[in-house]
């Protein structure tokens, strides 16, 4: 149930600097969710202070793509992509999805998929691949991306340095 507005009125567009605070709110929700998956994803106390710079930089950078889903005046979803060079491999470029978040009540309406499709188009223009990162224990994300045709390609392992 999405309030009084119909589903069709959710639009996807590139983020503007004026969206930064709303985008940050969504990203912080995503980061707090990640706390569920590993103690090393504990959100830092100054996350919102450093986060706003992160969002603004991303919106203004040519190496990033930030797209939002907007419903009325509300930002209800966001995807943030880093364009990375693959020096040793082909294809040479990678559109790497770092953050994807859709507000709970807008889920199950394919807005997540549409945000990814948006990125896919850009990636196609770049002639590269699309990769995504998320906590290994996030089963919902695993299912979501596998359903969209993604497959695991890289493992990231962690330990603390020797004391």
């Amino acid at each position, binding site marked *: 149930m999405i309030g009084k507005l119909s589903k069709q009125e959710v639009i996807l567009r590139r983020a503007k600097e004026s969206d930064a605070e709303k985008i940050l709110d969504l990203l912080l929700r995503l980061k707090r969710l990640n706390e569920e998956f590993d103690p090393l994803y504990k959100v830092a106390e100054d996350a919102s202070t450093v986060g706003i710079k992160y969002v603004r930089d991303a919106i203004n950078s040519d190496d990033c793509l930030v797209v939002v889903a907007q419903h009325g005046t509300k930002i209800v979803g966001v995807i943030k992509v880093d364009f990375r060079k693959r020096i040793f491999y082909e294809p040479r470029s990678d559109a790497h999805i770092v953050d994807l978040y859709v507000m*709970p009540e807008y889920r199950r309406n394919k807005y997540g998929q549409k945000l990814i499709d948006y990125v896919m188009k850009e990636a196609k223009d770049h002639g590269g691949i699309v990769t995504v990162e998320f906590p290994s224990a996030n089963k919902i994300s695993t299912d979501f991306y596998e359903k969209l045709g993604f497959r695991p390609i890289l493992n990231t392992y962690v330990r603390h340095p020797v004391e």
Partner: protein
Amino acid sequence: MSSVSQEEAETKKTSELSLRLHEYYKGKIEVELKCPVSSFQDFSVWYTPGVAKPSLAIADDADLSYEYTNRGNLIAILSDGSRVLGLGKVGPYAALPVMEGKSLLYKYLGGVDAYPIVVGTETAEELVRTALYLSPSFGGINLEDIEAPKCFSVLEQLRKDSTIPVWHDDQQGTATVTIAALKNALNLTSRKLKESKVALVGAGAASVATARLLFLSGLPKESLIVCDSHGILHPEREDLDKLQLRNPWKYSLAIETNGERKKGGIKEALEGADICISAAAPGPGVIKPDWVSKMSKMSIVFALANPVPEIWPREAKNAGAATVATGRSDFPNQVNNSLVFPAVFRGALDVRARSITDEMCLAAADSLASYAEVRGLTDTHILPTMDEWELYTYEAAAVGTKAIAQNLARRTKSESELRDMAYRKISSARNKVKVLMKEGLIPNVPG
């Protein structure tokens, strides 16, 4: 204050007596024979070699186990002791006296043989597997005192996989009797559920099931507001992502309810509501009279926490509530699961049902509400009481009939046949106790 301390003294006295009598009787149930044994010759019929014949017949057709054994009148009361009464996680051994008590109620009120099975496991997967492994022995399974949200996934899985009916009393029993009481309260205050605004206080096992039955009874989802210990559930609450992982049932409520997008706590949830159903933390003072006075006129307040309701009935009435119900027997309108579960299984077993659906719960609620209605509704009489024991026969027949209509019954009976069967079984159970007591085979209470 004196009545409170008097009540505490009374509770203490009952507790001490209970401990003494549990020790004296060494529990409350045992296995008794139901066939005659006149001589040892009879053993060749009841046991080997004669028993091979029914055994082989069942080997060809498992459903014949309902004809040749007690399976059709026997259920398991399955618990891991993870949320026993208001005591919390006391474990399987400590759950046993409670499960024996439940067994006593099943037999005395519903004529149902219910055997306590407490298990030393805690995971949802193992509980599901245990229930499935046990099902050849039983005609049904009553899940009892299993903590939320585990109880939701266990029930959901078993409702899919089990070929015998599975019931979680803390969810469906409470929800069913609540709906029955609500029907009559709505009737008394000339309301329709689909035009009412409902506030559910508490989002545990009972509330989640109550919400489901409310929707099935016609309440629009957006007309419900659910409040948990962190406040009103709404789609923008910060903890929603975590809920999606940990408690998808509550998550769905947060997404689907609260059309007005109210935020805040119980106070805000009650503002303008017609109905408050609270199964939250024991009170008093959880719900303030001021908040009830901000509900609509002639409001309905169910304060179901035990032992102390969230608001005292008199306070709620003084604040403007027209009809008040609690979970206690010493106030009018006791919303008590015991009005439901013995009849639900009586009905389900008598038609050899495969499942207990929400529609069967509503059939039970309708029957219970009608039973009170024909005897005259007043604001202090919206539900019958356990001593009107014939109500169980009507309720069982309604449940069985619904199972047949939903194609979930292994055998078909008319509603009056079902009522007669229930009557015979329940009166037999009560009479047996009477006879055993009279003969001294159940000894009198000592002292």
